[in-house]
């Protein structure tokens, strides 16, 4: 009997303590951040989708189109298209396609980039109506006003042209020599044939 009464009193006391705690919480200010009206402050290391960084010296990206990022990506999100422009050392980036629908923000691409030209952005409120909204061309995003032409180095251009000319000349000489040798061989063969016919 005394246990029964004590049981009841303890239960009621625990319920009253619970009520007191919620009462205290009720009187405190809400902690909600009213999202569209107030903005979230992102930490600098937040992993949004990757972006090409603008090199302050050259005014454009530093990507050398080595393709490391594309080859280490676990989900094969990155496609790099590049071309060779005469007079520019190395390859020139034509487009850097990131398929963000499969990206898992693992950071392998950023870590393995040889020139440090890509990094995470701070974008967290991407919303779109179409899957194609999430196939980014990072080069276009870096240069929305228009992709600048690559800077042609005149020295290099001259060297390349000379090299090309020399190579072309060499090829032409080789071709002439081969033709001559072929003619020689055919006259030899026909000479042999006539010699054979004679004997």
């Amino acid at each position, binding site marked *: 009997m005394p246990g029964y009464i004590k049981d009841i009193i303890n239960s009621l006391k625990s319920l009253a303590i*619970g*009520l007191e*705690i*919620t009462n205290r919480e009720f009187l405190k200010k809400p*902690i909600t951040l009213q999202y569209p009206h107030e903005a979230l402050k992102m930490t600098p290391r937040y992993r949004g989708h990757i972006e090409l960084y603008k090199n302050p010296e050259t005014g454009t990206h530093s990507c050398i189109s080595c393709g490391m990022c594309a080859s280490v990506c676990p989900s094969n999100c990155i496609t790099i298209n590049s071309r060779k422009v005469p007079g520019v050392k190395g390859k020139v980036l034509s487009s850097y396609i990131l398929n963000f629908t499969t990206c898992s923000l693992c950071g392998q691409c950023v870590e393995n980039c040889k020139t440090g030209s890509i990094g995470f952005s701070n974008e967290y409120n991407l919303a779109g109506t179409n899957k194609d909204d999430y196939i980014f061309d990072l080069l276009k995003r870096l240069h929305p006003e228009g992709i600048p032409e690559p800077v042609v180095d005149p020295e290099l251009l001259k060297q390349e042209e000379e090299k090309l000319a020399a190579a072309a000349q060499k090829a032409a000489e080789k071709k002439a020599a081969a033709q001559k040798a072929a003619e020689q061989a055919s006259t030899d063969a026909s000479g042999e044939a006539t010699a054979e016919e004679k004997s």
Partner: protein
Amino acid sequence: MDELIRLLSYFVGIAAFLGFNLAYLGWVERKGAGHIQRRNGPKEVGPYGLLQPLADGLKLMSKQLVVPAAADKPLFMCAPVLAMVPAVLLFVVIPFGDGLVPRQFNSGLLMMFAFASVAVLSILMAGWGSGNKYSLIAGTRAVSQNIAFEIPMLITAITIVMITGTLDLSEIVRYQDGGFWRWNIFRLDKSILMPASFLIFYICSMAETNRAPFDLGEAESELVAGYHTEYGGMGFGLFMMAEYANLVIGCSLTTILFLGGWQSPFGILPDGPHWFFLKMYFLVWCFVWMRWTFPRVTLWGLLNLSWKYLIPFSLVNLLLTALFIKVF
């Protein structure tokens, strides 16, 4: 003619009161829940979310009333209506102020309990008529819960009737005039366990209206939505409104029986319906407060609570009251 005008004005008044309550008690609950949980409740629709109930009502009315193929159609359609009718009907007997009763019954208390028992039928109809095993389980749980908790409620009410000597609700309120020390909850000269009996009555009314922590019928996280799983649109709306109406009735009854109805707590201040509403809404707020604080009891815990704790206590209280009345 006078009588007709009086009845009509009461009809309009109670309809307005009911409509306002049913809509805005939902707002109170959501705002209260929000602030207890350190967040805002509804905010965007109207200032402080005050137009939210209208938006909810519009949404519910525009939904399709789907009747499941396996459902028992007449039962399914009748259940929400039957839930609403007793709740609305009981407002006929509640004295809002001195003489402010739509209809004077000298057995008002009896009528209250009679109609409140009808509400259980609607839950069972909904549970069975949905043709859904979850709803059936919930319906049977709710029936056993309601029956179990009506008994201590009735016994406690009998205690009050013994003290005041009448079943008439207005008389019960008039008996408690003169100041808060004459309210039934504090009348320790009539029974030493009077506050306990108030608590018992309050808990029973919580269980009768299927409010948390006794909401096994609607157990949201176990049985999805209990007996009103299959209802959409205004069917669900009617159940929700019936629940809030029952809530108001339960709190009104507690106020009348224990807290002195429309009597003011001090002799100096005038008594009137404003005191009734104040006390009633305080009790409603306590309901909301308790809902968002406590987890749900199990079926066994619920039945244990009723049969092993509430009923013995109320019987003891009855005997004590009889003793005190005879001796003192």
